[in-house]
């Protein structure tokens, strides 16, 4: 597993470095339309071909990777931290606090939050740069994505609170914040890491789903989300298989994340 982690680190670093230096690596600006080469196949000039407006797919993939690779984990981190704070503390404290938080979670899960994205998009100032707009979209996803994992983390915290481990710690005089940070939080790691690992592609796909229904990243900014939109047309897929490239990169990145994050090793 150690070897696997090293490989994962290497791959992630390479992808990250290439996308960070997209300005230098990309052969063309992501918005440049080569209108005489619309939907063209892969070639020496266009490594992954061009899209329906003649824009170089390889350039758009590089820039899109930079945006999604930075923002999706940030949004996932935000939602995970909120889930740990809210769900973890609720499960640890129990009683009235736990009940109130559970009700807030239920209310949160009931409201049509897709509608909120409609509203956020509609209320943004019209001349908001596309990059700010996408940062806001991911932030909103992060702020809204805590409720479901909070429930699971709360269950975990509750279970730990009643465990022998914590009983023993309390008997030794450990209380309050120290108990939470030293004994409970570390033991929540499996479920917290699982949540973070799942949240990264979930937010990327969330942005893709928003794009499928017209609320995604504004033109001409590329992101994995709007690159993945092309998969919704299987006819295009069959004639231009290089549209799978963003999916391939996403799978590689997500796989690397999961090998990188601490996992429970099997007991020998």
């Amino acid at each position, binding site marked *: 597993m150690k070897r696997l982690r090293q490989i994962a680190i290497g791959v992630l670093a390479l992808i990250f470095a290439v996308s960070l230096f997209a300005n230098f690596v990309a052969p063309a600006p992501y918005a440049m339309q080569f209108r005489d080469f619309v939907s063209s196949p892969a070639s020496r000039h266009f490594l992954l071909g061009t899209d329906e407006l003649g824009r170089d797919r390889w350039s758009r993939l590089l820039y899109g990777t930079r945006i999604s690779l930075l923002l999706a984990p940030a949004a996932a981190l935000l939602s995970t931290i909120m889930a740990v704070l809210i769900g973890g503390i609720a499960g640890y404290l129990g009683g009235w606090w736990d009940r109130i938080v559970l009700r807030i979670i239920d209310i949160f899960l009931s409201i049509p939050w897709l509608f909120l994205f409609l509203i956020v998009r509609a209320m943004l100032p019209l001349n*908001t740069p596309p990059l700010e707009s996408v940062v806001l979209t991911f932030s909103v996803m992060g702020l809204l994505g805590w409720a479901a994992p909070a429930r699971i983390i709360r269950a975990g915290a509750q279970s730990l609170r009643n465990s022998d481990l914590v009983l023993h710690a309390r008997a030794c005089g450990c209380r309050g914040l120290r108990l939470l940070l030293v004994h409970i939080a570390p033991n929540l790691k499996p479920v917290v890491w699982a949540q973070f690992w799942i949240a990264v592609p979930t937010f990327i796909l969330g942005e893709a789903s928003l794009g499928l229904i017209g609320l995604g990243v504004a033109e001409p900014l590329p992101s994995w989300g709007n690159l993945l939109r092309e998969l919704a047309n299987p006819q295009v897929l069959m004639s231009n298989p290089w549209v799978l490239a963003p999916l391939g990169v996403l799978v590689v990145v997500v796989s690397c994340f999961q090998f990188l994050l601490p996992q429970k090793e099997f007991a020998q």
Partner: protein
Amino acid sequence: MKRLLLSFAFAAASLMAQWGGELRFCLRSEPKTFHPLQVEDDASETVRYLTGGVLIRVNRLTQALEPELATSWKITQHGTAIVFQLRHNVTFSDGTPFTAEDVAFTMRALMDPALHSATGDAFRSGSGEVRTMVAADDRVTIVFPAPVAGLERLFDQVPMLSSRSPQKDMAVAGPFVLDKYTPGYEVLLKRNSHYWKTDATGRRLPYLDAIRLEIQQNREIEVARFQRGELHLINSIEPEVFHRLSAQTPSLVYDAGPSLESEMMWFNQNPSAAIPDYKKAWFRSKIFRRAISASINRADMCRVIYFGHAQPATGPISPANRFWYRAPSKPQAYNPAEARQRLLQDGFHLEDGALHDREGHPVEFSLVTNAGNKVRERMAAMIQQDLEAIGIKVNVVTLDFRSLIERISQNFRYEACLLGLTNYDLDPNSQMNVWLSSASNHQWYPSQAQPATVWEAEIDRLMRAQASTVVREKRKQYFDKVQEIVSDEAPFLYLVTKNSLSALSPKLLNASPAMIRPQAYWNAENLILSPAQLASNVR
């Protein structure tokens, strides 16, 4: 030549027609109503077209008026009245006879102020009541308070209701009648056995037994099902789909030429809009608007987005509208260099490649359009690049339709808008509420108390003049002048006129797609399914 061949084919097919079969195609949404006079959405309009019997029908292919439930008509009293001679021996789908009283009943229902029907509003030419006078069972006169321009054509949208049928508005006089509606899935229409029209052999039409309208919003799924043979036609297909299908099976697709639909953009010229004053000054400048227009490469849009199945638009009227179209005397050519030059002469200047106005503000504006429309999103991206070439930055913002409508019609918090124009009627009088400066659809600056500019006042005068006369040639002269002013002042930047694109199964005979809606099934009563298809329909 193509039309002549189609006519021969049609005649030949009629002689050898096989009766029966179930035609299948899709509705893009659920119909909101089956009441013929309350139709407001496309799906309901499809059902109305297929079931409604009208007095006069516009032949979608020839654009000529044809007698239907009325055998003849005459406009009298300087265009304020129309006298109909009705067809004999016509009954509704439940056997109730059709008489002049039904026409009167329909008009009274249509003109009911509480109905607020778009079809009814098209008849409102002035304040006062619309009167109907039944002279005999087969003769009726309808009198309007003021002349109604293009009066006869409007009856194409008015299906007759029965005044006596116990089925009320479900009794219809069209070729099909509503049989079953399964919400979320389909609408099933069956042959109206009382339909008045017959074929050359004297047998009662339609040829088809039924039409199954399946509710399918996803266009890709619709195309896949069409290719699998589950559907017989797609009334209107996207240019990308047309291009793909024509590469695979050219015989399946049909380009009927320019349609009545176009795409356009405009700037917000409303002085009370919540946008900076310096931007208002840009948008109200004819030089600025014309420069923007000259910088947009319409030919590229037609080639790249529409795959050649569109043409650069020059004005509000499509070239397919043969009588009303007028080519502009000074067409707007694509010339970004000249556009930049005109702007520089007008006080703008370049700084590091970016255009600035005389006060030093960088020329930047937002362009809103509706989310989820891939064609418009691509057009917006192309406009973005075209204007970047002359130093103007455009921010494309896609909004859901209601948010967009609120901005352009209610709070006016937008700078430029890209939308499509759909003409329901060939007659430009139907666009009165776009051209009158006091109207709410005068998009760039609606509901003006007084015309804000001299040219808008002139358009108001010309539109009222054309509405007040029934002499067609005179009306055309007036409207030609309107087109000339619009071409010069460019309140709307017309971008492309789309072609009418349809897909037809080879099993469907007698179909001859037109450029006016409904393109592919306008002659539904004459459509035939091939014998092989009929055999496969047997279950």
